């Protein structure tokens, strides 16, 4: 086997639409469902700790952008601070929970608007770890020498699922924690990375040491989904014959029926969230045991979860097992930029990359737990200095 090359994140970008929306104005922005204030909002907001976020919506819940626009704006910022021309980009990978159109893939729309290529494209679809899937694919293409400059974009426009009209369209609406939880959790935004087969000439780059993605979908039921009004119908333990006929939004006679039946609400099974943390911890312990990461060598820990999700016995046990990453190493901008699904990890790394706090030789460890159906992504980065010999 020929020796594999390296891949480096050499430039980053973020785009967040509109002004930051604080907790007081969030419901005004998304709209009062049937004119009434939410009873669960306060409780959910205090548990996620988010203070401000962005939505691509105007005050009447009309979209101000397409998802594609968010992706392109982040990509532009990333390219503007890079050392390469548009025409050198040979791969465009775009990740999102939901593109603008059911087809074609979001990468096609983003490429068209960026006006780059001809080049290879990749669209990944999933939930929070979709961006890491796109990143890993680009990383490997660079490592095998097939590509030199890959643009990887993660973009989310969750507000389309969260505006009041989505809830009002449901017949006999009964809003419970499962169907409302994500309304106060998710928001819009995009992040972009440029991956190159060599570090920047000037300034720092992030060498990707490895990316591991581990899915446990065969072990757990749906935890976060959109497209069914009953997540339990998708249980791994349910016999095919026990399932209702109308169980995917596409199986209804009309899309209007699907919406009226609540199949298009975004849902979170809160009971399973603790298991998401456990599965994440299990993967982390595996990586330590495999020698891929040593908790004591981590200088910056970027996790799509906030530290307050790790509590109780699991925290004690991690501490005891020497696998706890001290609070001061955690980096997050979740509280001010919001939870932007698969874009969150890119948006956090973008801020860290530009913070001036990264020094050559440092280790950055990233974790993206995806609750959708238990797919967790892990990545180790090493900060490297510019090829000109200066660190900055």
């Amino acid at each position, binding site marked *: 086997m020929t020796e594999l090359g390296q891949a480096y994140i050499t430039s980053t970008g973020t785009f967040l639409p509109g002004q930051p929306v604080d907790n007081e104005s969030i419901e005004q922005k998304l709209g009062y469902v049937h004119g009434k204030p939410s009873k669960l909002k306060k409780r959910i907001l205090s548990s996620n700790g988010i203070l401000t976020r962005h939505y691509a919506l105007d005050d009447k819940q009309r979209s101000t952008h397409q998802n594609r626009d968010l992706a392109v704006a982040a990509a532009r910022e990333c390219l503007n601070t890079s050392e390469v021309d548009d025409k050198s980009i040979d791969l465009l990978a775009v990740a999102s929970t939901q593109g603008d159109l059911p087809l074609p893939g979001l990468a096609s729309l983003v490429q068209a608007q960026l006006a780059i290529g001809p080049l290879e494209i990749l669209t990944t679809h999933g939930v929070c770890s979709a961006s890491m899937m796109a990143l890993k694919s680009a990383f490997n293409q660079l490592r095998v020498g097939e590509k030199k400059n890959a643009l990887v974009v993660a973009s989310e426009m969750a507000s389309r699922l969260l505006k009041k009209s989505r809830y009002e369209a449901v017949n006999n609406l009964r809003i419970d924690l499962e169907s409302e939880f994500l309304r106060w959790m998710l928001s819009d935004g995009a992040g972009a990375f440029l991956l190159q087969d060599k570090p920047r000439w000037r300034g720092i780059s992030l060498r990707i040491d490895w990316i591991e993605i581990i899915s446990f979908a065969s072990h757990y039921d749906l935890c976060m989904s959109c497209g069914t009004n009953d997540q339990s119908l998708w249980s791994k333990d349910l016999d095919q014959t026990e399932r209702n006929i109308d169980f995917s939004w596409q199986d209804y006679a009309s899309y209007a029926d699907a919406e009226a039946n609540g199949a298009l609400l975004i849902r979170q099974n809160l009971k399973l969230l603790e298991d998401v943390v456990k599965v994440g911890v299990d993967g982390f312990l595996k990586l330590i045991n495999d020698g891929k990461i040593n908790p004591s060598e981590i200088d910056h820990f970027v996790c799509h979860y906030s530290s307050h999700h790790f509590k109780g016995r699991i925290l004690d046990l991690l501490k005891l*097992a*020497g696998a706890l990453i001290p609070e001061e190493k955690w980096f997050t901008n979740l509280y001010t930029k919001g939870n932007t699904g698969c874009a969150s990890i890119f948006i956090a790394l973008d801020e860290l990359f530009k913070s001036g706090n990264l020094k050559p030789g440092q280790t950055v460890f990233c974790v993206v737990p995806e609750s959708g159906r238990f797919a967790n992504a892990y990545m180790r980065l090493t900060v490297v200095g510019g090829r000109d010999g200066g660190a900055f």
Partner: protein
Amino acid sequence: MVALSEKEMTLGPKAQETLRHLLRVWLDFERKLQSIPILRRLDQRTFTPEDYRVLLLNMRPQVIEGSRWISRAASSFTAEYSDIRSMILRHAVDEHRDYTMLENDFLSIGGNLEEIQKAKRNIGTEALAGYLMNEATKPNPINLLGAMFIIEGLGNKMASSWACAIQECLSISDKSTTFLSYHGENDETHMQKLYDLLDDKSIAHDAADDIVKTAKVVARLYLLQLEEFDNT
């Protein structure tokens, strides 16, 4: 949640490594527990009084066997391991009459004493008890710390939540779940002793692999015991 002592905050690197391996065995075990039909029903709150009866009937033989292998293990330690022997003996004293709690729980839900006392080992319990007794008979069976990690872990991490769920499903009080409640409250102390032992240099260095392997076997056989309820 019990605060961890200073000593445990600073386990040696080898003990930490062993604990990380044990934690992964535990997390895998916990995942598989969720697929056990009776526990799944408990989780989904479709657990019935009959389920609880069956649970108690199947637990008793294991609990009886448990006190036997622990006592046997204690007697298999030579003088150089007298600390462990004392610890295990104390543990055996703590738990060797546990089955009376089970019996009382069974009676409190309308069961009859003779029935539970006659309950036979299911084929999973046979396998688990046979394996543990065999290991306990070997000289200085330090590997059984792995067994304790799983079995005490069940008490420590699961018993309380099971007790609460059972009370909720069956509308019964904590007086009918004394066995599970006791373990939920007391196994934390047992776990702490176990961590101390893991950190003992003579143990941690020489027996780490065996401890982890034993934890895996016990986890697998414990699942088998739960899968084979009433298969006697």
